[in-house]
């Protein structure tokens, strides 16, 4: 099953993105806790793109595609024309350093790396895809 959702780059759209993902995951029988964790990871990547790659410019948009493979897992593709930061290469800052420096950012990508099984950045001629894979039983 494949699902797709395109949204303008506004922070206020994050809530809609979460509802969209949640609805699909519920439909495929994920537990509430598994679904909420995956929703969080998608929220983090989208927030990162909307804020840092697009500076919340509502004229730009990002697209989310979800592919659910029975008994295999779920692929989340976040598609963007802007350059996507390679989360896989992101070196996790130490929590102690974040606390000492009183930084508010830097936690989102740590969460994504801890939640997802695979993170891949695919460069196409016209777009970039951040592909997040979760191997999990789905119906």
């Amino acid at each position, binding site marked *: 099953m494949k699902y797709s959702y395109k949204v303008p780059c506004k922070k206020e759209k994050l809530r809609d993105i979460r509802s969209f993902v949640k609805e699909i995951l519920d439909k495929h029988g994920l537990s509430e806790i598994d679904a909420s964790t995956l929703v969080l990871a998608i929220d983090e990547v989208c927030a990162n793109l909307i804020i840092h790659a697009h500076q919340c410019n509502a004229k730009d948009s990002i697209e989310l595609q979800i592919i659910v493979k029975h008994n295999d897992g779920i692929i989340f593709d976040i598609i963007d024309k802007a350059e996507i930061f390679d989360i896989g290469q992101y070196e996790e800052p130490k929590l102690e350093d974040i606390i000492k420096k009183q930084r508010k950012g830097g936690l989102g990508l740590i969460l994504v790396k801890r*939640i997802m099984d695979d993170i891949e950045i695919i460069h196409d001629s016209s777009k970039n895809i951040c592909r997040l894979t979760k191997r999990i039983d789905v119906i």
Partner: protein
Amino acid sequence: MVDVKRIQEGNYDLITIVGEVDASSSIELDNAIAEAIQSGNKAFLVDCSSLEYISSAGLGVFMSYIEDFKKNDIHIVLFGMNEKVRNVFEILGLDQLLTIRGEKEEAKSAL
């Protein structure tokens, strides 16, 4: 999308977070915590029972004030988190860095 209320209850202030804290609403939480610190009070309970969602933006707010809490000898205890919200704190290990309790009474005793 988030409301943060603060009321004085005896020897501590009760901060109640209602709604969802994400990248678009974390500023509200940030302002409320900053005001709480500036108030000069030293004891806070944070009621998370109506906190429906928190992303890294919200966790970052708590993280960024840990040093201020220490420096100003402020005691802050979070309580009442639902399982999903608590899970987010645990993924990052923040449950080890902040004081989190189940019920309000336990939280009061931990102050």
